[in-house]
Structures are given as structure tokens and as C-alpha cells.
């Protein structure tokens, strides 16, 4: 029974920007070890959903549960400590700090120096490029490297759940593929992933399940395999007629 309980559960979430009703009752769940993807067009509310989960926005209605504990009342920094890390939209790296300083800030909530160094090695083995450039100012990295840094930084918190907001954005197709390979690797190493994407094709190819978001509402949910062959999804998001 315990295995079936979701590690992250969002129930009837309503989030507003002033009086703009951005999320109109989102319900979704993520189980341990899964990759769940949230796909949808620009402006559908994907970023808003992630920001509400990690506490950067407060819902007006609805709840977020982590392992059965209501977390939507917590502050963003407290939620990070629960093991929920975010790779923000547009990477959100600290562009004037060095690669190493960025990674160090990823581990801000931790004090176990030895384990932090282990994780740093792990990030460097996942992204050797970052190791070469650890002293470099992050703003001078290429787009792909910045995305690696954003992911690496989130991993430095040793998260249980990784929320990723459009990691493929603005990257050359070949780099997108390698980033998604890495996401799979990270997941296999035991991190649960909630992946937000506009690139539905790629997202569904690595996900277990998916939700389709449209103007603040979930309009479809299924296994990734089923979504890939769903007519509506194919038309709207996979560019197939």
C-alpha cells in the first residue's frame, strides 16, 4: 500500500497573479522513482504549477502534499529542505558567479561537507564539461553548459524530487538529446522527476506518465506510451496530422 502512495500530490490547485487566474484546479500526482511529464503550450501554466509546488507562489485554493504532508503552507526555502529541488525556467544560473560557486549554492541547505564533495564529484562525472570550467564565470558558458550547470546545481541539494522547467528550451536538438539522456540517468540513480516541457516528443519518450495542460487545466492524463499515440496529443503537440 505504501508503495502506491504518491511522493508528491497536487490537489485542485488554483493560483492567481493578481486577478489573473493562471491555474484553474490542477490535480496531479508523482510516485517514487517515476519520470512524470507535464506538457502544454506556451502560457498553459506549466511554470506556474512548478513554482506553486516549490513554494515560490502561494495557491489561493488547493493543496500540495509531499509524502502525505501538506507543504503549500511552507516557505520556498523550507520546501527545498524537504528534498524538492527545481531547475528553473531559463536556467536561472547566477551568471556572475563561477561554476563552482553556483554548484556550491545548490548545496546551500546542506552542511555535510564530505557528502557535498561526493556530490560535487558526481555532478562533475555527469557533466565533465563543468569540471573543466569550474573556475569560469557562469554567464560565459554556452547555453548547453548553462543548462548542465542548472541541473547540476539542483542535484547538489541531493534532492528526492527534481522539478525541471523546460530544460530543452533554446538548445540545439543534439544537445537536447544529451540532456534528456542525463535526465534518464539521474532518474535511474533514484531521483523522482517532474518534467515540464513544450517539447512533448522528447518528454514523452523518457517519461512514465504524462499530463497535458491547457489554459490552466489538466485536459488529459495517461501513460507516456498512450499519450504518444493519442490523436489529440499528436495533433496539438507532436506536429502530426
Amino acid at each position, binding site marked *: 500500500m505504501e508503495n502506491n502512495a504518491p511522493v508528491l500530490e497536487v490537489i485542485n490547485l488554483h493560483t492567481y497573479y493578481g486577478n489573473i487566474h493562471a491555474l484553474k484546479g490542477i490535480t496531479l500526482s508523482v510516485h517514487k522513482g517515476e519520470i512524470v511529464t507535464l506538457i502544454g503550450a506556451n502560457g498553459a501554466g506549466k511554470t506556474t504549477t512548478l513554482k506553486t509546488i*516549490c*513554494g*515560490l507562489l502561494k495557491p489561493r485554493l488547493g493543496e500540495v502534499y509531499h509524502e502525505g504532508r501538506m507543504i503549500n503552507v511552507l*516557505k*520556498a*526555502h523550507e520546501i*527545498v*529542505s524537504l528534498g524538492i*529541488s*527545481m531547475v*528553473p525556467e531559463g536556467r*536561472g*544560473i*547566477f*551568471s*556572475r*558567479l563561477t561554476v563552482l*560557486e553556483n554548484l*556550491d*549554492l*545548490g548545496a*546551500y*541547505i546542506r552542511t555535510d561537507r564530505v557528502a557535498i564533495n561526493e556530490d560535487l564529484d558526481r555532478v562533475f562525472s555527469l557533466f565533465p564539461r563543468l569540471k573543466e*570550467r569550474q573556475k*569560469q*564565470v557562469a*554567464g*560565459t*558558458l*554556452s*547555453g*548547453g*553548459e548553462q543548462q548542465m550547470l542548472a541541473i547540476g*546545481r539542483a542535484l547538489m*541539494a541531493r534532492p528526492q524530487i527534481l522539478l525541471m522547467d523546460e530544460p530543452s528550451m533554446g538548445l*540545439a536538438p*543534439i*544537445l537536447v538529446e*544529451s540532456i534528456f539522456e542525463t535526465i534518464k540517468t539521474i532518474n535511474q540513480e533514484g531521483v523522482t522527476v517532474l518534467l515540464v516541457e513544450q517539447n512533448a516528443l522528447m518528454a514523452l519518450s523518457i517519461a512514465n506518465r504524462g499530463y497535458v495542460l491547457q489554459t490552466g487545466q489538466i485536459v488529459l492524463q495517461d501513460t507516456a506510451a498512450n499519450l504518444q499515440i493519442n490523436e489529440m496529443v499528436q495533433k496539438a503537440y507532436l506536429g502530426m496530422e
Partner: protein
Amino acid sequence: MGDNIRAGLISGIAFGVIIIITSLIGFFGTVSALLGEFLFDPKTQPAALYSLVLILALLGLWAGIRAAKPVGTDRWSGALVSGAVAGLSTGLFVGIYTLIIGGFNARGLDIRGYLAQMSPDAIRFLLFQLPPATAALSYFLLFTTTGLAGGFLAKTLGRGRLKKANQQLKSKITELWESTSVAVWLSKFPYTQYIVYGAIIILALLLPISLGQYWNFTLGTVGVYVLMGLGINIVVGMAGLLDLGYVAFFAVGAYTVGLLTSPQQLSQFQIDFWPAAFLAIVIAAITGIILGFPVLRLRGDYLAIVTLGFGEIIRILVRSDLLSDFTGGPQGVRQIDGPSLFGISLTNDRAYLYMIILAIMLAIFVTIRFKDSRVGRAWVAMREDETVSQAMGINTYTTKLLAFAVGAAFAGLGGVLFASRNQYIGPEDANLLVSINVLAVVIVGGMGSIPGVFLGAFVLKGLPEIMRQLQDYRILAFGALLVVMMIVRPEGLWPSQRRRLEMHEEELPLEELEETEAIGALEAALEESTK
């Protein structure tokens, strides 16, 4: 060509403004007189006048070089156009200015009421003892030719041999330095930097004994600004919170120690200096937190405006009739007590300078400890991107409050030392200008840099004290200096490494950036081919 003209104009305007403002505060008169005695034989020649022309010519040359250096050095025409435009525009500005001041003289108007240095004699001196129109034309020609010469110089010195020679010289010097036994020994010795620090500390401690009373007092004033500069460096430079009401904490520190030690106000509640000073610092820090609370959610410009308001509120409060029983209203608090140790009174300027130096050392120690700590990293992250830093688990509320509290404690300490040294604190010691002065100290010195604070405080508080004439027009000089700084050296005189990177982002890592992109593309291609 457009770039060349633009560079010339920018340089010309900057130099024109500098020259006009520095002349208004009597800079050229003073410096020419000094230089004249030094360089020329004062009896046989109009020494000061020669010096004036020399200084102006050098400035014109500099304007031309500055204009030509960044853009036009690959082509002769470009460099010359930049230099000429810089000279022309400087000449035009200063020429018009001489016409105006010459006009005042011709009409017999005395403008000393507004600008104390601009006596008719001083103006005639600035006009080279010539009629205004001739003088204006001379200025125009002087700057145009020197600007052009500057462009020429930039071209000859810029890219080619001289730059290379310069680099060679530099590497030779490093080689020589590294090969000398002392250097080798020093670099092998792990404690070199501690020895250097130790030497600086010993020198600093010897300073007050070796100086007279005037210098002890002057350096004490500079020191109080260093102290406050270090504080605002944390708030603005590290945490990125633009606080324009910083003087409020200085005032709280000063008034607290005043109220607690002066027999004048709360006579039944008079305590010794040391506990009073301690209380004052604590209360200043608490005030920092209290004022921090309501502005936590504000960012950028709003924060600046609201904090500015706070600073003024404190000043108005201590001035007001409402509190005048405690604060003495406009009269301020008198007879503030000074410290004593083992029965020896420490109220002379030398003792105060010692205390100020010790306070600065303490502040530097605290700053360095914070810089390398978790909190320091959180401040920097918060300054970079507040939202993302929250997502990293940084509690931006407490982190901001801590920055306010630490900064306020430094200012409070500055206030304590200032008030007890002067044995007086009044509302006008706590006006908006103090905040602006302190901010100017760190901007001029270089935001976020500790040596920069010293340099800034010395340039802005020490120099005017030395050249008393400047005092009246400090504000004007500040304005000019700040404008010029923004143009010429936006990162400050002695910037921190980080700041240097930020400000010259577009210049410095460009090559690296290109390289990175190239490697990225290469890697992508490689991956493609291995598939």
C-alpha cells in the same frame, strides 16, 4: 566612423565637465601655483601660468587618448577623428565656459557669493590674463590640437610596438622578481600574506603616534567614513540592498551614546562610556532589523526611496519638539562623555584615532568572515537573483535582515566614535548628505572591495579636508566625480575581483565566450557523427 565620433564626444564631454567643475572649485589655481613653484623658477617666469597651460595640455592629450584608444586604433583616420572630436568638444565646452566667466569679470560682477574660489583675479588667471574672446579661442585651439595629438599618440602607442614593449617589460619584471632569491623565499614561505597583513597592522598602529593632532583628527574623520563604508559595503555591495537611509543607524548609535553619557538629557540615567557604546551598537543593529522588516518585500528603486525616507524620519524625529526633552531638538546633545581605561581618559585625538583604527580592524575581520561564510554566499546569490536564491533554499528574509543588522552595527559604531570624539551630536550631523557621502565612498572606491573603501574615504573625505578650499563645493565635486567615475571607471578605483568581472563583462570574457560556443558546436558535431 560613427563610433569614432561618438567616442570622441563622450570623452570630450566628460573632460569638459571635469575641467569646468574642477576649475570652479579652484583646483587649477591651487595646483598651478604648487606645480609652478616646483617646476619653474618663480622669479623669472610666470610660473603658475605655464603650469596651468601644461596641466590643460596634458588633460587635452588624455582626452584624445581616451577617445581614440578603445575604438579607432586599427586605422589612422579613426584614431585621429576620435582624438580631434574629443579635443574639439572639450575645447567648445571650456571655451564657452571661459566666455561666461570672462563676461562676469568684464561687467564687474563678483560671483564669489556663489563660488568662493572665483575671485576676479582667479578668473583672469584662468583666462591666461587675456580678453575673454581671445582666451576662449586659445582654449579651443589648445584642446583641439592636444586632442588630435592624443589621438595620434593613442595610435602610435596603442596596438603596435609600444603595447608589446610594455607587455614584454611587464613579463621581464615578473621574471626578474620571481628569479630573485627573496621572492622565491617569500613565495615558498606559506605565511607571506600573514606577514604582509601583520606589517600593515603594525604600520596602522604606529600611525597615530607619528602624526600630529591635526592629522590624527583628520584621519579620524576619514576612519569613521571607512567604518561606515565597510558597513554599507555589506548592505549594498554584498547583499545588493540599495539603502539610502544609512545615516539613520549612525544617528541611532551617536544619539544613544549621547543620551546615556551626557549629563544634559537624562541626568538621572547616566552610565559609563563602554556599556553605553555597547548598548548603542546593539540598538543600532536592532534598528536595522526594525527598519528592515517593512522593506523586505521591496526591490531595487523602491527600496532606495523608502530607506531614504527612513533616514529623513530619524533626522526629523531627533530634531522635533516632540522629543526635544531627550534629544535637545535642533541644539543636539552636548557634553557627551568619552571613554577611559584604568582611570586614564582616552579623549584626545590620538586615542580616538587608535579606537577608530581598532574598530576598522574589527569591521574588516567581520566583513572577511562573512564574505567566506554561508551567509556571505547567500548575500551574493540574493543580489544576483532573489527568486532563484529562494529556490536554492536561502531564507531571503533573515538573510536580508542580517545584512541590515550588520551594516547598521558598523554605522552605529561609527556614530558612537564620532559623537564621543566631538562630545556633541546634532540633527544636522545626521542629514541625507551623510548617506550619500558614504555611498559615494564605496562607489568611488569600488563596490564590494575593502581597499576600495579606504581609497574612496580618503579621496572623498581626506582630500577635501587637506585642500580646505574644496570643502564648500564638496557636493559639486561629488557630482562631477561620480559622473566621471561612471564614464571612466564604472567599477570604482579599486574594484573587487567580482565587480571587475561584472562591469567589464562585455570586454573581458568575450574571447572565452566565443571559444565556449565553438567548443559547444564542435562537441555537438562530434556527438552527431558518433551516432
